[in-house]
């Protein structure tokens, strides 16, 4: 083996999450009463298209969560040494994007740098000119043929994507005899997405589709890498504190008395601190701990990763109180129901009542708050990174991208593409999440009367 698998803390949590989701899907599949609201979600075209976009993001995030370190065996040495750079499967897939480092800024599809530099021409005179990029459009001899080449490559790549997408759709529709309108919309989305991906992928091998940033990194690569950070913040945060919120909320509502008082006191204290300040204070302290214990981490990635996981924990600590309060209120209502009283009079133990009767009946609240929180957390990450209490500055995320690009606002002419890329990717992710969350809420909320 010339590589060593690396499992970062966040990777482990992501895999745990995937396992939990798979388990939940398997559980729901066989039970019709649980399947019903999901079928309602599946009947909404907007929800399914959003889900498709989210799934695409999730695939990128998952590929980006399988990490390894490549072996670098020095000459005249038998000892195996691993590179300090932690790579992911996704990095390997988009190797050209990752490796094509330019010197500094270049515009999208540019073949020269953004600013003039002094060069020595053939005669030995020093001239100010735009130097050619090392990789972007390097295959072109004649700079004036760029536009035609871009169009040609976009068409070719798009055509490839179109064919692949259509093939996929045809194969997927084959066993499905009942073709609904939603299915048609989903198929169209798949084809459109595949066409776009094909065009971009074909262009990205020789151009910087979204330009390069200050240190010459490809902005498309940065945007794609940011997806994982955003997804982790959005999902792991709720995952790590969900058990706490559910248990405390249900216990407070069911047992009442002093248990209720203690739990209410805890969440009132936590929620009475403005969340940004609590997060800032906790992150500052975590920073001190991480900085004073460099021996804990063998790579920079492990360090940045632990900070990410801690950030999730801290964000979770400030956001579980809302769910806890909701669950407490709902449990207070449920415990007066006849079926709970029947269970009590049969002598069913409290733990069993909680797990068999109460928790299944508050599940819709948990699910709704989980999907509703996601987009807010992705947005919060950007703000926190801007404030300086977000992810590690070395970790690629939407927040760090915006933060770096913001400093170039005053430049003339303006460097706009980093901001635009972060804006588009974030908007796509958050919008899809919001639309999907709305559909889930509508399908699960029992207060909405559907006349079914």
């Amino acid at each position: 083996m010339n590589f060593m698998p690396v499992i970062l803390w966040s990777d482990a949590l992501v895999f745990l999450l995937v396992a939990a989701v798979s388990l939940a899907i398997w559980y729901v599949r066989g039970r019709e009463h649980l399947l019903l609201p999901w079928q309602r979600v599946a009947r909404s075209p907007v929800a399914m298209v959003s889900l498709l976009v989210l799934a695409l993001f999730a695939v990128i995030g998952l590929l980006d969560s399988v990490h390894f370190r490549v072996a670098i065996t020095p000459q005249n040495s038998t000892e195996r040494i691993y590179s300090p750079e932690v790579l992911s499967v996704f990095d390997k897939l988009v190797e050209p994007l990752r490796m094509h480092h330019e010197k500094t800024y270049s515009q999208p599809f540019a073949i020269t740098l953004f600013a003039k530099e002094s060069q020595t021409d053939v005669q030995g005179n020093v001239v100010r000119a735009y130097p050619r990029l090392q990789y972007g459009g390097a295959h072109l001899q004649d700079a004036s043929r760029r536009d035609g080449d871009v169009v040609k490559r976009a068409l070719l790549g798009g055509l490839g994507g179109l064919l692949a997408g259509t093939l996929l759709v045809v194969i997927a529709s084959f066993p499905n005899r009942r073709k609904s309108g939603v299915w048609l919309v989903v198929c169209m989305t798949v084809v459109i997405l595949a066409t776009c991906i094909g065009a971009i992928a074909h262009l990205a091998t020789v151009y910087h589709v979204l330009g390069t940033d200050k240190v010459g990194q490809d902005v498309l690569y940065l945007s794609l890498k940011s997806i994982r950070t955003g997804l982790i913040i959005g999902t792991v945060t709720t995952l790590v504190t969900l058990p706490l919120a559910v248990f405390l909320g249900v216990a407070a509502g069911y047992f009442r008395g002093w248990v209720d008082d203690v739990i209410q006191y805890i969440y009132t204290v936590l929620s009475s601190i403005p969340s940004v300040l609590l997060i800032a204070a906790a992150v500052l302290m975590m920073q001190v701990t991480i900085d004073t214990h460099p021996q804990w981490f063998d790579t920079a990635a492990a360090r940045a990763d632990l900070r990410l996981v801690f950030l999730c924990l801290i964000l979770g600590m400030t956001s579980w109180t809302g769910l806890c309060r909701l669950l407490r209120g709902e449990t207070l209502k449920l415990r007066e129901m006849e079926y709970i009283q029947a269970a009590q009079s049969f002598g069913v133990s409290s733990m069993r009542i909680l797990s068999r009767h109460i928790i299944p009946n508050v599940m819709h609240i948990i699910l709704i708050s989980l999907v509703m929180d996601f987009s807010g957390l992705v947005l919060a990450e950007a703000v926190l990174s801007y404030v300086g209490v977000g992810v590690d500055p070395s970790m690629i995320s939407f927040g760090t991208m915006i933060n770096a690009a913001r400093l170039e606002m005053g430049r003339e002419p303006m460097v706009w593409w980093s901001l635009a890329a972060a804006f588009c990717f974030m908007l796509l992710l958050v919008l899809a999440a919001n639309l999907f969350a709305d559909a889930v809420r509508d399908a699960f909320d029992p207060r909405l009367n559907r006349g079914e």
Partner: protein
Amino acid sequence: MIAYLIRRILYAVPILIGVNLLTFALFFVVNTPDDMARMQLGIKRVTPEAISAWKQQRGYDKPLMFNAAGSGINKVSDTIFWQKSVSMFSFDFGYSDDGRSISREIVTRMTPSLAIALPTFLIGLFVYVSFALLMTLFRGTALDIVGVALCVLLMSISGLFYIIGGQFLVSKLWHLVPISGYANGAASFKFVVLPIVIGVIGGIGSSSRWYRTIFLEEIGKDYVRTARAKGLSELRVLFTHVLKNAMIPILTGVVVVIPLLFMGSLLTESFFGIPGLGSYTIDAINAQDFSVVRAMVFLGSVLYIAGLILTDISYTVADPRVRLQ
């Protein structure tokens, strides 16, 4: 009512003690003062003398909770906990790292924060409620659908982009107002107008949608049907009946933030260079000035609790059926 208020204020005391204990644990127990000193002075090449000097300068060279060397009351009072945490109850926040009194900074910086936050809040409330009422009035029509879609789109955009985009368009491209800065008195108008407009626009998406949900919930109730049956016009139903009855959920979400307006907005103030409490906090976070952050955490929770009490009072004003006992 008075008895209720006194009870509520007394009830706030244990919560503030909890906040105090939490921040104390966060700032002094998770990391020892030695760790903080090492972090601030640079991780490597820091002498023990430098650390103890740093600690002494800030008063961190005392025992955490209990001073065995002291006598009498000093056993408790001559400690970090007493001097740094308990003293906050008298709003004595001590000094920041650059040697200024934090309390004085807070007082002087409140005005710029309020100059932005208060108009944003009031104009925002008016705009959001009007927009939501408009959508409710035209519910089910194309206008409503477009409005909701617009709301979802607007709330999917990070607040950072509203500020960056607004600064770019208004200040850089059109040169209407300065990009950032602040002046006292009436001269501050040109500095605060853009942050206020951006603040209002940034909140349209989520707020208007939220108010719309509240109104729609009210509009399905029986009293609305009765009002319509009486022959009232839809506008009258909406403005006199629905709006009044929706007051309680609206107040629940709105009144609690009023005291927090004093704290200003972190993002807006730092982008626009407003010398308010928000930018004070952000500077303290970046400079890792722990005493300022601690003071702001405490102040924030005091204001939040004040907001909760105000909410209760506002219920009695909005709804005569509510009695505080």
